[in-house]
């Protein structure tokens, strides 16, 4: 489902003497449907970078990044948009939304985007917010005013409300209490059961061991760090 | 005759105006620019109509001038005298006798014939002007037949007043093509714009001439659910009893007594001469 082949990535800082910073080289990764792969490696090794390359957020310098049947490294913007809408979900560490939009709408949006009718989308959004223990009185407010933990849960709700066949999870259990952490882990397990291919970053070792099927150390892709 | 050239204007100018008139007749409702001359009267007193009349009159014509239907207002009298002096044409107050009738803000009640010419004085010839101040843009709208804007005005009328409150200078579409301002005639007169006589419109200050040839289709614009109505005061003339003519309301005294009289003075006079009597006719005579 997710097939990364020999990807390299470097940043060229044109405004700082055109310094070229290689950050990834020879990265390869395959994730099958129903499988969860955890990325490991020290901070700065390139876990998030690899994830962003898969999401199309960073431009791969070379190599292939195939998700479904689309090579993200070479796709047109509209193809990537369609991929993100239908196939590839991403739960980042930060919630980025239009201010003022009510939480319920924020969470329902991925469903509306794939053509669910409004009522059905709202119902599903309500279900998942309830599961994640966001009090109903907050649903009509914009999440921009919420606490960090609440924002994180809204972000997770938004990421899991539509059943993406492929998912990228960046620290999904960070800053959550035990009860919500448990909910998120079961959401991940459910996603795996329905066949989602998942790439995750989990600092929480216990969580990582519970949901991931194998680990890939990205340090091996880091230029200058590779063993 | 006298020291004036016939009908005041020189022959070259009259030829120029006649060319504009002919072009106007050839393209009904289209505003033809012309080189308006200074006339010995102020703008707003009918300089456009006077120039058209001057270019139209022949020594054999009989000339009549009405101002809001009346032959005896200052404006009507002075224009009539102007042509008596400069053209030496016969003048009349009787509609049926006139061959050229210059008018300000009315169409005579009597049906006009195909040997008559009606000349309108026009203050603002551009019907789109109030919403679109740019002449370049209104000309383009006319040429491309983009007339949505004129309905915006009618929409505004209904939304503000509950009905189309435009009661004069009511816009019309001529011969299924040009939207035209019929000059500030009451909308009661709009149905009469389809007539046997030639209608010429002259705007002196704005330097435009336009025309409606005889038997031309003239449609007053409206909405399907707010159709055009040619309205008038719901009265009969208090002098001649006419129920089909456009009426002026006259305040009689400080007590609020009013009377309604025909705005077309010739029409009223000829009806009374024929024996028709209105509600206040005897008192007036007394």
């Amino acid at each position, binding site marked *: 489902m997710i097939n990364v082949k020999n990807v390299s990535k470097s*940043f060229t800082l044109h405004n700082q003497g055109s310094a070229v910073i290689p950050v990834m080289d020879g990265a390869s990764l395959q994730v099958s449907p129903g499988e969860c792969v955890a990325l490991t490696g020290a901070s700065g090794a390139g876990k998030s970078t690899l994830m962003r390359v898969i999401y199309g*957020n960073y431009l791969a310098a070379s190599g292939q990044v195939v998700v479904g049947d689309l090579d993200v490294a070479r796709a047109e*913007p509209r193809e990537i948009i369609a991929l993100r809408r239908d196939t590839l979900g991403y739960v980042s560490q930060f919630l980025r939304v239009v201010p003022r939009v009510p939480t319920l709408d924020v969470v329902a949006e991925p469903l509306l985007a794939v053509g669910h009718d409004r009522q059905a989308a709202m119902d599903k959004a309500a279900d998942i917010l309830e599961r994640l223990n966001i009090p109903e009185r907050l649903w009509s407010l914009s999440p921009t005013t919420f606490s960090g933990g609440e924002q994180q849960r809204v972000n997770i709700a938004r990421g899991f409300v539509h059943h993406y066949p492929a998912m990228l999870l960046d620290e999904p259990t960070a800053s959550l209490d035990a009860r919500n952490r448990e909910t998120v882990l079961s959401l991940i397990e459910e996603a795996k059961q329905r066949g989602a291919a998942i790439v995750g970053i989990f600092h929480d070792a216990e969580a990582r061991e519970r949901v991931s099927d194998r680990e890939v150390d990205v340090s091996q892709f880091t230029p200058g760090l590779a063993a | 005759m006298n020291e004036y050239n016939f009908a005041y204007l020189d022959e070259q100018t009259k030829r120029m105006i006649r060319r504009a008139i002919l072009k106007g007749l050839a393209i009904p409702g289209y505003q033809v620019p012309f080189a308006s001359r200074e006339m010995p009267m102020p703008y707003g007193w009918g300089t456009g109509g006077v120039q058209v009349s001057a270019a139209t009159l022949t020594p054999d014509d009989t000339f009549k001038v009405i101002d809001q239907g009346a032959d005896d207002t200052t404006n009507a009298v002075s224009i009539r005298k102007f042509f008596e002096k400069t053209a030496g044409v016969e003048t009349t107050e009787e509609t049926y006798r006139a061959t050229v009738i210059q008018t300000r803000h009315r169409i005579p009640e009597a049906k006009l014939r195909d040997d008559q010419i009606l000349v309108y004085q026009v203050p603002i010839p551009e019907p789109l002007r109030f919403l679109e101040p740019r002449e370049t843009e209104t000309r383009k709208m006319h040429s491309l037949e983009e007339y*949505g*804007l004129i309905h915006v005005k009618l*929409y505004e009328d209904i939304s503000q007043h509950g009905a189309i409150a435009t009661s004069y200078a009511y816009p019309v579409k001529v011969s299924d093509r040009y939207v035209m301002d019929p000059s500030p005639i009451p909308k009661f007169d709009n149905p009469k714009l389809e007539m046997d006589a030639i209608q010429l419109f002259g705007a002196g200050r704005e330097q435009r001439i336009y025309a409606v040839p005889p038997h031309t289709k003239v449609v007053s614009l409206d909405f399907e*659910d707010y159709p055009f109505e040619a309205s008038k005061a719901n009265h009969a003339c208090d002098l001649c009893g006419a129920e089909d003519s456009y009426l002026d309301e006259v305040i009689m005294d400080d007590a609020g007594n009013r009377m309604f009289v025909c705005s077309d003075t010739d029409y009223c006079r000829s009806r009374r001469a024929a024996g028709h009597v209105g509600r206040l006719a005897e008192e007036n005579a007394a």
Partner: protein
Amino acid sequence: MTPLLQVKGIDKHYGARIGCMDVSFDLYPGEVMGIVGESGSGKSTLLNCMAGHLIPDAGQVIFDTRAEGPVDTVTMSEPERRMLSRTDWAFVHQHARDGLRMSVSAGGNIGERLMAVGDRHYGDIRDKAIDWLGRVEIDVTRVDDRPMAFSGGMQQRLQIARNLVTGPRLVFMDEPTGGLDVSVQARLLDLLRGLVREMGLSAIIVTHDLAVVRLLADRLMVMKDGHVVETGLTDQVLDDPQHAYTQLLVSSVLQV
């Protein structure tokens, strides 16, 4: 899929000065594209060339018309182009007063495009105007008020309603949130996002505000000195800019 708009090799000079040079791209149905760059980068020139307000010196602006399929709007007749601009196209000006008739009521402003395409039923026109006031979140009791009496944000929303009432397929926007308070901007952006999705609109948004394009645009075109220096997926261009100028642009934004 046929692109809704194909821009090919657009050049525009102002005398010896470059307005924009050799701009080409395809816009597909439902896509929202942002054009960013500093003042004088040629983005407004480009927008006006595409919208038919300026005649480019060279190039084609091919629009997929409903009736005849793809047609070059640069060479089409003026009546056709003007018809397009009040049916399938919409143009949202930065200053609402450039796009509104200030002496006409809100209802009349919205109704104008309907009347321009031949709608002649007052009741229907008014119903649609009221419906649209609601959709752009203006109190429907203001339908007979003139925009003069509206706040800047309301005027801008009215301008959007006036433009979208005929169900256009392509909307050109020139700094649609410029000059508005930040809180009003957010509300407008949210509204635009919703309308774009509901109506399946394609849009081209010119702005110098990177936050606006991040929220509204699927993809981005970065212009400098009349040339396109970078294009791509919006978040990719903003988070991983490749060109020196884009890097400078992105790094110049204050973080809040």
